[in-house]
């Protein structure tokens, strides 16, 4: 297994399962309704906003992997348009997983040497740093989504 293949596996594991923490985004989002996904818990971001946020960075990094320029802004990364139906929620979730599949395939096809090249601009570090960063970023927010889901399910039971 090459290093890009290994990175791709870690990426797929956090989205689709098989990672060491035994938690993945696909199983976690399973069964969450659009109403739950958009319910605000305390002052925290909603599940829908966190999914949008995860996908936002995958989208911008994927574009670079596809040869386009880096075009990202932190201020837009939480800018989810209001979700008002199950269809809109499913669309967001499906888009996230479709992008994730594309992203994983792109990483897998990279040459080893590419990992240590500058990512768009030297100030952003190299490809490895950005790809590993996307995986870590997903784990970070997955931990929050898992917590929000538990709180929402428990409050529903009461």
């Amino acid at each position, binding site marked *: 297994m090459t290093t890009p293949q290994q990175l791709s596996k*870690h990426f797929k594991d956090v989205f689709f399962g098989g990672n060491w*923490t035994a938690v993945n985004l696909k199983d976690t989002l399973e069964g969450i309704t659009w109403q739950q996904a958009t319910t605000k818990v305390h002052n925290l971001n909603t599940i829908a906003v966190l999914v949008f946020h995860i996908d936002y960075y995958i989208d911008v990094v994927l574009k670079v992997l596809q040869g386009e320029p880096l075009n990202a802004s932190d201020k837009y990364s939480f800018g989810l348009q209001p979700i008002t139906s199950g269809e809109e929620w499913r669309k967001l979730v499906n888009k996230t997983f479709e992008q994730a599949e594309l992203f994983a395939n792109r990483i897998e096809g990279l040459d080893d040497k590419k990992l240590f090249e500058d990512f768009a601009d030297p100030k952003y570090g190299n490809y490895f740093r950005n790809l590993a960063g996307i995986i870590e970023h997903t*784990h*970070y927010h997955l931990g929050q989504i898992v*917590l929000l889901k538990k709180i929402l399910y428990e409050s529903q039971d009461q």
Partner: protein
Amino acid sequence: MDKVLFIKMVLGAWNIRIAQLDKLFGELPDEQLQKEIAPGKNTGVYILGHLTAINNRMIPLLNLGNELHPGLFKTFVETPEKEIVATPTVKELRQAWKDINKELDALFERMQPDEWFERHNSISPEDFAKEPHRNKLNVVITRTCHLDYHAGQLVLLK
């Protein structure tokens, strides 16, 4: 593949996350750390203990010696928080977190590049022959993601 550069990148990501958590734990006074991350959920102290226990277990897992604090794994990994009978004090846990990470840092420093690509102690020689990517360096990658997962939850205490 430049092994040394790859190792440097992986350990760099690990060190950054440890430093970020050091800072976060430093910013959270004991009484805040003792609060539940969310109502009815684990406290910050339990997560501190959990992360410390997992890092502690890395020492024997990587075949680098014995755990510095035996017993942490049983308390903070195998036992749910609400079933814990006796727990170290917050002060003791904060110290254990620092000591274990310092020890890991020193042990990592002494490892030769090729050692990182050897088998760790929880994979059989037969499985490792089939999946050589499940090496010691891969343990650091997965444990970095584990730190990320819980860091995303710990920030909710702030």
